[in-house]
């Protein structure tokens, strides 16, 4: 059974279509990555799935309940945590836990048990009386996730949970997500970080409200970019890029620090052609040219550019 089934989900604000006829399924217990640029419609989709925004068309079943007609039942079966860490900064850690336990109706032994669990996962075992606002970001974020799942929901939605957090805290946070997933909780997570997307069992990518790709990371890499990619390292990155873009056999280009990734339209082109063009004709020192398998980033840049071009036409 699928934890989430999204059918023709659409949200229109006035003349603007924020989410445009999206369909996807999320399997029970998996970590599902939801990717897209800012304003692509990720948050709008999530807000519909958690029952606080009504869809204009379409529907979704979350834990078997319709978000259109049974949003109260949906709310009882999910947890939600957003980038803003919706904890009360002026309450202590335990006061926050007690409050969220209270609105989900936990009390007595169950409450004590879950309180201990939240304190443990947030690494705050002896710091229950600390004011939440004074905690460091990474800890606060784990506390927020802990309180968001205090009622042990079957599905948890995480809306950019790691934005603005240092890499070590991000790593710790993902350990916690994996722990939840192993315990059978379905996790739907939106993120900007493509390295985080690699941790997901399944991924969808949306652009301008439309779903443009889905699959696991292997499928995405092999299904969406058929043409070879070359990684070029040279001493004048910007100049090299300008020269390359004039060539007919160059498809898309993108800069990654000192490297340029080039998707070739013509598979007969090889490393030698690049050396010839940049070094011999234009006098740019080329350190390295290598054929690579595409990264998720290449895939997404490729897909988003393709989609944007289509939209312009």
């Amino acid at each position: 059974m699928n934890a989430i089934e999204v059918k023709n989900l659409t949200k229109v604000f006035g003349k603007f279509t924020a989410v445009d006829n999206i369909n996807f399924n999320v399997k029970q217990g998996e970590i599902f990555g939801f990717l897209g640029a800012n304003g692509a419609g990720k948050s709008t989709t999530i807000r519909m799935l958690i029952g606080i925004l009504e869809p204009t068309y379409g529907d979704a079943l979350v834990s078997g309940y319709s978000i259109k007609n049974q949003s109260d039942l949906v709310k009882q079966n999910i947890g939600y945590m957003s980038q803003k860490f919706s904890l009360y900064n002026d309450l202590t850690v335990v006061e926050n836990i007690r409050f969220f336990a209270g609105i989900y109706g936990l009390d007595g032994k169950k409450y004590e048990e879950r309180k201990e669990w939240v304190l443990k996962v947030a690494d705050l075992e002896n710091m229950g009386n600390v004011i939440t606002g004074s905690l460091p970001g990474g800890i606060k974020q784990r506390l927020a996730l802990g309180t968001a799942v205090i009622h042990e929901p079957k599905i948890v939605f995480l809306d950019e949970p790691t934005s603005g957090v240092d890499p070590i805290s991000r790593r710790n946070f993902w350990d916690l997500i994996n722990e939840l997933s192993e315990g059978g909780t379905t996790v739907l997570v939106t993120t900007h970080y493509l390295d985080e997307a690699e941790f997901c069992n399944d991924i969808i990518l949306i652009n301008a409200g439309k779903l443009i790709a889905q699959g696991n990371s292997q499928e995405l890499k092999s299904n969406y970019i058929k043409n070879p990619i070359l990684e070029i390292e040279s001493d004048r990155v910007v100049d090299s890029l300008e020269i390359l873009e004039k060539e007919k056999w160059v498809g898309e280009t993108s800069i990654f620090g000192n490297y340029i990734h080039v998707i070739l339209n013509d598979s007969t082109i090889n490393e030698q052609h690049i050396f010839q063009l940049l070094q011999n004709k234009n006098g740019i020192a080329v350190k390295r040219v290598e054929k690579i398998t595409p990264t998720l980033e290449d895939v997404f840049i490729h897909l988003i550019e393709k989609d944007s071009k289509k939209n312009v036409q």
Partner: protein
Amino acid sequence: MFNRIFAIAKKEMRQLKRDIRMLFIVFFFPVVLLAIFGYAINFDVHHIKIAVYDQDRSEYTRDYISGLISSEYFDLVTYIDNDDQIKKMLDEKIVQAVVVFPKDMSRRLLSKQEVKIQFLVDGVDGTSANVIQNYVNAATYSYSIQLTKEYLAVTGKNLYVPIDLQPRFWFNPDLQSTRFLIPGLMGMILIITAVISISLSIVREKERGTIEQINVSPLSSIEFILGKTIPYIVISLINATIVLLAGYILFGIVIKGNILLLLLGTFAFLFAALSLGVFISTISDSQQVAFQAANVTSLLPSLILSGFIFPIESMPIAIQVLTNITPAKFYIVILRAILLRGAGISAFWDQLIYLGIFGLVFIVLATLVDKKSKNK
């Protein structure tokens, strides 16, 4: 359901405990307002400064003046001796009124002719001028009667006054304006603290994003609003008690009527005021906006339109209709009935209904606006 409401209420109390600014608004503000308004707004006119231009300098003029200044209403500042000084006295506001006795006053009195005494009053402050005129009329009338009696005594007759009016002021025998003002003040203080505190406390959740976490929980809007308002109902009742105690200690106001009825009226009023506050929270996005809106909708109308200071009966019809925008108007009627007259529910049941309607209207409006904004 009650557990969830209770969870919200407890959380609200814990937050309030740490919020110094809010505690100040909620507890200190009312007492300060009561003291300032109680002492500052005082329509009783005492110690009016007068000057006397006595061209007669007789026993009669002295008697007349001592009759005026023996009361606490008038203070004799100075005697003057020419017409020019009259203008100076009034222009420079050295005195509020000047009494001018004519040159031939005693001669005319002795020859049983009518005497005209000129009384010049600074009319800029119309209310005071009116009061001054009334006091002087009364004083002159009683001196006239005294002279008539003396005259008749000489001729061996008794004065017969056919009608003697004996006014007695009920509910406020000394006509102290504070007795009239305290109920209005109590209404104003309660509405300000109730509307400001509830709207700020809801908008703060919007501003900080914590409302999002509540929206995704199974908590219904009704549970949320009830949980939020319970602490402020308790606080408002404490406030009402503080104001009543301060009214007793500072101004000697005792509750004449039934305390349970007072509680009932206060509940009805808090329902109306809190739903106004909830409505404001739905149309405001920041605490600043909410604070301004709460001030404008609670402070100004309850000060000007509630009948607290200016009697509603003497306003133009259009303004009288407008007075219904403040629940303080209805509450003040209830308070005056219970506090000053000791009246029963028959004197104000209609006001309870108005308060109920007011509260319902704003709760429904708030729900509509909230539904609409959720789909944006």
